């Protein structure tokens, strides 16, 4: 729970659209508690667990970002999205063939694991740390596949103006609720979205009947989420099929095994060596430990030597690793900007204060 005040600050500034971070003390408290519980529980089949990670600047001890995973979307109930569909209206007799874009309310993504709660302090946006914050989740999933579904999805905020007015909501949801979008968002934050979804139109929506601004908002990302969205697209997530039922934002999905981090990561043994790890062939790796409740991930310069990941003593100590420990590592890939140093760990419970520092 020691992370709660920092997470509350993040929730307060995060944009409308990140419903998984409601600016509500009680809800965040519950979220952290259930995350702590999820990390410490043996799981055979993915269920209602949520895993909540924080990005910590180990130089300052500041929490500068959050990310999360819901093990099973819509657990206990349904997870609603609109599916983009093309209905072909054709007549041979009249020699006409029209493709009509329609939105079907569906439960397709129910039971998938959801990537949620991504937020990073804007000061770190142009660094490699967003990569860590987002992709550490995938290394966690690679290590503990039984805790997750084999398919993933992630919701992304759709277009809205500075007052939170969403053109898609105004054309669709508003007709069925008589309330503004931010209000509806708040109602759904922290509680089952199903509750709201059941009030939404159940029949397909013919897109040509919607006003132009609502049509344009379908599948359009809010610019505020460009960064996490681009990380997911680079991983191999697909954005064409599903959209959020409230604001029309793109919901991406992918099979876990096809993702770049999953395909390129390896399970290796730690070998601590100051010389090898700092030599010229060293690359930036996403490195994650293989325990659940002391899970840590960071970006470190390292060299792969057979089945060994050769790390510097400094990097190993941030990760609380010693020679011979198992880790998962995936190449970071190329990045232009650099920021402060950080690592990702489960958001901590009251008794867990172990956040090792790591100095660049």
């Amino acid at each position, binding site marked *: 729970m020691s992370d709660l005040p920092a997470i509350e600050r993040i929730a307060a500034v995060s944009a409308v659209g990140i419903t998984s971070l409601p600016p509500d003390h009680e809800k965040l408290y519950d979220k952290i508690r259930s995350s702590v519980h999820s990390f410490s529980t043996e799981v055979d089949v993915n269920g209602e667990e949520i895993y909540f990670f924080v990005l910590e600047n180990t130089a300052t001890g500041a929490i500068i970002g959050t990310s999360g995973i819901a093990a099973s979307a819509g657990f206990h109930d349904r997870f609603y999205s609109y599916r983009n569909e093309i*209905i072909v*209206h*054709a*007549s041979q*007799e*009249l020699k*006409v063939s*029209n493709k*009509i874009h*329609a939105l079907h309310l569906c439960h397709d993504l129910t039971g998938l694991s959801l990537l949620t709660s991504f937020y990073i302090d804007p000061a770190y946006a142009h660094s490699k740390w967003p990569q860590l914050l987002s992709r550490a989740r995938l290394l966690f999933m690679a290590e503990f596949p039984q805790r997750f579904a084999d398919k993933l999805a992630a919701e992304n905020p759709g277009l809205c103006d500075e007052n939170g007015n969403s053109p898609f909501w105004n*054309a669709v949801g508003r*007709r*069925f*609720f*008589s*309330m503004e979008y931010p209000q509806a968002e708040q*109602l759904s934050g922290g509680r089952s979205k199903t*509750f*709201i979804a*059941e*009030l*939404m*139109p*159940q*029949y*397909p*929506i*013919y897109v*040509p*009947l*919607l006003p132009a601004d609502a049509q344009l908002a379908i599948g359009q990302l809010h610019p505020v989420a460009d960064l996490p969205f681009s990380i997911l697209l680079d991983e191999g997530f697909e954005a064409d099929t599903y959209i959020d039922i409230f604001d029309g934002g793109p919901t991406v999905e992918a099979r876990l095994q096809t993702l770049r981090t999953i395909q390129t990561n390896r399970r290796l043994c730690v070998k601590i060596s100051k010389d090898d790890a700092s030599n010229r062939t060293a690359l930036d790796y996403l490195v994650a430990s293989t325990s659940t409740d002391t899970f840590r991930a960071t970006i470190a310069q390292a060299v792969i030597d057979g089945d060994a990941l050769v790390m510097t003593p400094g990097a190993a100590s941030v990760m609380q690793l010693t020679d011979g420990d198992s880790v998962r590592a995936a190449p970071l890939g190329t990045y232009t900007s650099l920021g402060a140093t950080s690592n990702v760990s489960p958001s901590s419970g009251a008794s867990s204060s172990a956040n090792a520092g790591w100095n660049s």
Partner: protein
Amino acid sequence: MNATLMIVRPIAAADLGALFQLASKAGVGLTTLPANEALLKQRIDASLASFAGTAEPADQIFVFVMEEAETVSEHGRERKKNKIVGICAIAAAVGLRQPWYSYRVGQVVHASQELGIFTQTPTLFLSNDHTGHSELCSLFLDSEYRVGKNGSMLSKCRFLFIAQFRALFAKKMIAELRGVSDAEGKSPFWESLGRHFFSMDFKDADYLTGIGKKSFVAELMPKHPLYSSFLTPAAQAVIGQTHELTRPAQAMLEAEGFRYEGHVDIFDAGPAVECDVGDIDAVVKSRLFTADVGPEAGSDAGSTAKSEQPKINYLVASTSLDHFRVLLVRASPSGELLRLSAVQAAALGIKSGDSIRGVPLSPKDRVAS
């Protein structure tokens, strides 16, 4: 002296040319009377087969024409001049060859006590609900003849036919009324809905309907239920509304017991009105009389001699299928007898003592039989 008589009779093969001329005057909105000679011939053939009893029930359509029969005296000789001035028809059963589509106007309620939300949203469901019903259709009267009781006679003559030959028809009768469109034939409903699915003007879609391709067009229309609140306000406003020029026809049908029950046309959202055949006022209150052919009957002058009830407008029809004729006469039947003049009897093709069916033209003149 020139004498004219309006008579309704089954259409004949020789009427094709006259019918084509009439159809050319009908214009947008009368989908069942397209100015297309081949189709009109088909329609006539279908009617002939229906009267002859050789058509399957699914194909049966009984088409009638209103004819002005004028007797002209020239150089001491009488000559008959006949002119087709109107048409009407009854289809025995719709939608049994090609699907019959209409939108059912409904609503969905989205409510949550916990959120304090209660919204009613109107919907349109594509339906085939009218499949198998009989339909009053193809009513058209030459604009020069839209005077007096002609319109009323042309429309209601069908009820005598239905009453006389109930077995030919379904339990339920429907009639589609033309929806709202402007002087250029633009329908707000079509502009908001159909146009998105079918890039053509309403009058073109309407024409396709008339030439028997409505189901093809319908197959291009949205199949899923529609939230009408997604349509333009102008389109929402005309759902179930009748075209200004068709309102008298609607009032006439409503006076006979027809009601709008929430079905509208898929193109212009004009209402379909419906009624159980057994509840149509003119059908229920029509009855059989014995023709009493005599001098001066059928005109108001005849009533002055006796202290009878005042004469009223009566629709009278012969009772044979292959020689069905309808006239509008002035009469005050007493008991089983209904008095007709020799000219009227000749027009109906009956003689004194024959059975005829009659009903007062106006519902307010009718009494329960």
